[in-house]
């Protein structure tokens, strides 16, 4: 039996103060690192985007919004926006849809599904730069596998299709050298490379769908696979879908390596694949125009931030049950 001694100097207010100090002390290293590594560079980039700074120069001038004015007036940057948004708008929906489709099929297969899972995931694991070289060979206008395969169709029924008719008469597309095809080739490779990743995310999402819900749906009269998908699977995958779409968008905005590998000197035929990341690289690194490079970076940051905010809002409001 002891008497609890209360130290009169330890008042509740003092105790709270002490705890607060400890808490700040413990978070300080993390906060410092976050400021140094994440926030400071962003702020510096934001400041530089209003200057004409070049690396190596001793000074710089404030140019106001001139860099941004350029972004919205010059035709090069118009092409940049067109290429970037074409890529995002094509790659995101198709790779998400293919990812979902593949996940549903693989999920339905059971044991053999593992083989497909591996096959579809291979492009994700491969280095895109190396893969780009392989694609470059395959898409070569004359000796490439793609066009040689298409040529096999000449003289067959397939020639009734306009694409083959044109190809057999005037030669098949140059692909990487053709400004009408280049961006779509990049999109295709982006989809090929990315949908396996979405599939894996969807497979993870599918494991959380309660099996008894399918039985309930059956008892409730949902007879077709589509009805069960609409009633059970799709709503259950809501949170996964928001995540997959956001990740796919951010990855699509970041497309760079294929463009750099195919056209190291300037963003494709007639700048038709001059995507944002490549523009940042070209302006900021190759041409040492830090000001304009920073301006594009800020714009890029705003897009990504916007997407992330939409995702947060959707997750919290719409798909969280």
């Amino acid at each position, binding site marked *: 039996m002891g008497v609890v001694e209360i130290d009169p100097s330890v008042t509740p207010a003092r105790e709270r103060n002490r705890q607060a100090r400890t808490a700040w002390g413990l978070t300080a290293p993390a906060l410092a690192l976050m400021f140094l590594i994440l926030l400071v560079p962003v702020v510096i980039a934001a400041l530089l985007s209003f200057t004409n700074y070049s690396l190596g120069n001793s000074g710089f001038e404030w140019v106001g919004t001139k860099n941004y004015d350029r972004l919205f007036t010059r035709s090069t940057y118009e092409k940049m926006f067109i290429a970037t948004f074409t890529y995002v708008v094509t790659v995101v929906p198709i790779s998400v849809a293919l990812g979902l489709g593949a996940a549903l099929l693989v999920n339905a297969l059971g044991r053999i599904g593992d083989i497909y899972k591996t096959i579809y995931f291979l492009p994700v694991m491969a280095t895109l730069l190396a893969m780009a070289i392989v694609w470059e060979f395959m898409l070569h206008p004359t000796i490439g596998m793609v066009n040689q395969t298409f040529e096999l169709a000449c003289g067959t029924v397939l020639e009734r299709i306009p694409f083959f008719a044109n190809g057999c008469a005037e030669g098949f597309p140059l692909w990487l050298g053709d400004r009408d095809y280049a961006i779509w080739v990049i999109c295709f490779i982006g989809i090929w490379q990315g949908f396996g990743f979405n599939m894996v995310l969807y497979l993870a999402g599918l494991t959380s769908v*309660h099996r*008894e*819900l399918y*039985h*309930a749906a059956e*008892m*409730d009269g949902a007879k077709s696979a589509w009805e069960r998908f609409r009633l059970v699977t799709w*709503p*259950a995958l809501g949170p996964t879908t928001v995540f997959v779409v956001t990740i796919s968008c951010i990855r699509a905005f970041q497309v760079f390596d294929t463009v750099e590998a195919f056209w190291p000197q300037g963003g494709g035929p007639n700048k038709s694949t001059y995507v944002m990341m490549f523009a940042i690289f070209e302006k900021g690194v190759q041409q040492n125009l830090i000001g304009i490079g920073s301006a594009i970076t800020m714009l890029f940051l705003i897009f990504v931030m916007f997407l992330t905010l939409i995702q947060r809002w959707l997750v919290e409001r719409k798909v969280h*049950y």
Partner: protein
Amino acid sequence: MAGLSITSVTKRFGDTEVLKGVTLDVGDAEFVSLVGPSGCGKSTLLRIIAGLEDVTSGDVSIGGRSVTGTRAADRDLSMVFQSYALYPHLTVGENIAVPLRMRSLSPLQRLPLLGGFMPGSREKRIEINSAVREAADMLEIGALLDRKPGQLSGGQRQRVALGRALVRDPAAFLLDEPLSNLDAKLRVQTRAEIAQLHRRLNTTFIYVTHDQVEAMTMSDRIAVMMDGEILQCAAPDIIYEDPNDIRVAEFIGSPKINILPSEIQAGTLSLFGKPIAKPSLQTQPGLFQLGLRPEALRLTAKDPILSGRVAHVENLGSELFAQIALEGEPIRVTLRASPSDRHHLKLQAQVGLTFTLEDALIFDANGKRHRRAEVFAPRSVEVA
């Protein structure tokens, strides 16, 4: 509303035979419970009736029509799942409406936004809404219709699951352990409500549970299942008082029935080598098992058949259960006593027990029941 019959249904999963030729007839508007320990095949049987599982052999028919090859959605049954299986993205009202929407609206009429403008859709939607409202009012969840299942308590979810089942007028309701996720108090309350619901709807109910109390209190008939077979299917009082099999006697009744090894030799039944009665014998001599419900045992001071020491007492207020460790035997028997006997049942107190042979159930060595009438003539106990 319809009766249901299950004829020699077997079910195998690989090498394991889960159901070994189950036959069961359920009358129209009857409440039948399938009760048994976990793994006895009762849930599988229910899922076979529902059509969620195929039979390996045998036949299921509903209302005289064989449905063995019919898919679940076409069997006109409603089911309440153990996990409730509510659609988490739909509100309570939408959840209850699903069976009606799926059955009475065409795929076009079900389209989001556009569906409302399809011809005939408006009238049907009004009908569905009023049916949902009616079901919700019956279960007193009218105020919850706009909530999502995630915002409800276990008991409320359970009601929504019931509402979704009864919003239609199915041939039969199948309930798969619907109360097992509720706390004890709510379970007692919901038990009574489901029984009332059955009387009110006057429809066939098939109710799976591992809880014998649920089965005893709600059902018209109980089918006790064990190891893939129905051991006995009868009214609750018959199952309790007149079980066919020692496994039924042991499963039903809480506390468990006391089983004492006994022997019939030369027309005399003896317990622990002590002759206690001379039944009019129509059976082969040999080893038997004597089943005594806790309420069949009585405390007695003179000429006890069994004697021992009080090892443990459970006081439930209105009654007392005492475990008596028998003298010289490694067996404990449970005795039900009234609170007035409490002073006799101090721990370690020496007590004597007696019983009337009429109240005892006799099982042979294989656990099959030998009816009193066949075995015993005397009404009172002759203490040797």
